[in-house]
């Protein structure tokens, strides 16, 4: 009786998941494997093989990988430096890095659109210095830049947390046993933070792969990602079946990348350090 009462408390959440997560996914699957007349077909899923779709998917993968790599390169040393600061300074710097997350994501991207545009601040400065204007906006680089800007905190925080969990004694013990600074990093700090790196990669790679707003605003329709293709199928072509079919393919990529990272992660985190 008591147990049943407590389970009852999860009721609102169950309703939420059912209505806003499970039902939409089932709907997507239904549309994805039927045509406009409602009969079964796999054509929507295999449509990914069309050159324009394939090109968008490959570009999405490439930009998402680039974005993840930049985030990692920026975050790891930063997390190390942060971790070595005094506690007071530490929480302040973390606050600074998390601060942008409190601002609306669209606003931040719109701000970059203004900064990077042909008559924007950056080009004005270049002009003032007597240098030629640069085409910054509406390039794949701008899209990657926007993604990195947006997703960086999601990489920093898990790595920083993992690093904070390493006790000073453990590092001292490794030094004591003869390890140089480099060996301490390779054999202690890196393996003990790999779980943070993996969560960071997943939390950056997945939204970067599926993003379409950033490429819309900073790519100006010239950078077509798989997210943009799906959006167009739904919103412009009104072809819900095709949009759903491509969504399923994208979902498979997301789930596969997460599974890959997790499998790889448990291996790295285990004994195979040497």
């Amino acid at each position, binding site marked *: 009786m008591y147990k049943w009462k407590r389970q009852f408390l999860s009721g609102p959440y169950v309703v939420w998941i059912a209505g806003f997560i499970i039902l939409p996914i089932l709907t997507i699957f239904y549309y994805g494997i039927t045509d406009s007349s409602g009969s079964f077909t796999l054509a929507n899923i295999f449509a990914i093989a069309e050159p324009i779709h394939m090109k968008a998917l490959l570009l999405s993968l490439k930009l998402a990988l680039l974005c993840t790599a930049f985030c990692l390169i920026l975050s790891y040393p930063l997390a190390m430096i942060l971790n070595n600061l005094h506690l007071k300074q530490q929480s302040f710097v973390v606050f600074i890095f998390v601060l942008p997350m409190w601002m609306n994501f669209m606003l931040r991207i719109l701000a970059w659109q203004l900064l990077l545009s042909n008559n924007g601040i950056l080009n004005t400065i270049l002009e003032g210095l007597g240098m030629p204007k640069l085409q910054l906006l509406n390039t794949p680089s701008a899209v990657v830049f926007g993604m990195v800007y947006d997703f960086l905190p999601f990489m920093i925080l898990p790595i920083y947390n993992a690093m904070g969990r390493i006790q000073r*004694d453990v590092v001292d*013990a490794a030094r004591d046993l*003869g390890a140089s600074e480099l060996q301490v990093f390779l054999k202690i700090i890196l393996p003990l933070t790999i779980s943070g790196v993996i969560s960071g990669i997943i939390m950056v790679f997945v939204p970067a792969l599926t993003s379409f707003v950033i490429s819309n605003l900073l790519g100006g329709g010239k950078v077509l990602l798989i997210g943009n293709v799906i959006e167009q199928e739904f919103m412009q072509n009104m072809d819900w079946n095709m949009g759903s079919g491509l969504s399923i393919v994208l979902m498979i990529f997301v789930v596969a990348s997460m599974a890959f990272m997790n499998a790889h992660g448990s291996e790295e985190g285990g004994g195979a350090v040497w």
Partner: protein
Amino acid sequence: MPKELIHLSHITKSYETAVILDDLDLHIRENEFMTLLGPSGCGKTTTLRLLGGFETPDAGQIFFDGTDITSLPPNERKLNTVFQKYALFTHMSIAENIAFGLKISKKSKTYIDDKIKYALKLVNLEGYEKRSVDSLSGGQQQRIAIARAIVNEPKVLLLDEPLGALDLKLRQDMQYELIRLKEELGITFVYVTHDQEEALTMSDTIVVMNQGYIQQIGTPEDIYNEPANAFVADFIGESNIIDGRMLQDRLVEFLGVQITCVDTGFGQNQPVDVVIRPEDVELSDPANGFMEGDVISTIFKGVHYEIEVHANGYDWLVHTTKMFPVGAHVGIHVIPFNIHIMNKPESNDEKAVESDV
């Protein structure tokens, strides 16, 4: 006497405004079990971290076997440390933990495997190679930490309150274990603790520290029987510390009575501290003592009764195997040999720690 191995010469160390060690000078000999004993904040752990190379002194030098190692990083010192909270590498198996130092120094695989076996046998954990760190109890983890340190054959093993996190029974077992280990390995142990019983049980030499100064260096017997000042007397076991006046050699006056003692050389009419161990106080018929008093509390402690006697304005702490009920009128007697006379503290660190009973 074995030759000197380590010399800490005029070491001073402070953090921001707090002075942790002030002009500390300490000699550690080969094959010695030396314990740094003191309350928290006395500088004992800092001394150990200076030896390990995790801290550098503000002034002074550290000599190891005659060579100055003051600025040598930890990985280039021939010492190994056992940390208070074990500090095992949780991402490695037990065997990998123990092999860490040996792999760094590029020993052959067969050598490493032999050493792992030998070390696990030494700490009574044979067959634990493949286990994970998390599957071990606190006591087992601490043994692995010791094994991990000793496989590197250090000349000195530094131990920072290694038994602090263990429960009483395990702590006592580990004390004997450590003594056995030290005898088998034949190396120097420098041991840090705030537990006086631990220090008395295991050490060849005890260094009692307080507020960054060494109060006394000596064998456990010296420290216990002949404490150098009120702080040591109070920190090592319990003591009655009474204001007194040395009238002349072998005659002291305290609490209004004059009593013969064995100490000399304090001059005439000098204010002194009279220190008497609770177990040295004898209770008897009122007529047989040098003063009379009333029992104000009696607590059974197992081995002895802990009795408080109010006499001549002082509450005496007495340990005795004979039971005296509260309210009993008794005589107090102490044989001259057990009356210890000490100079009054010259500085704060020599004073007994104030505590309300």
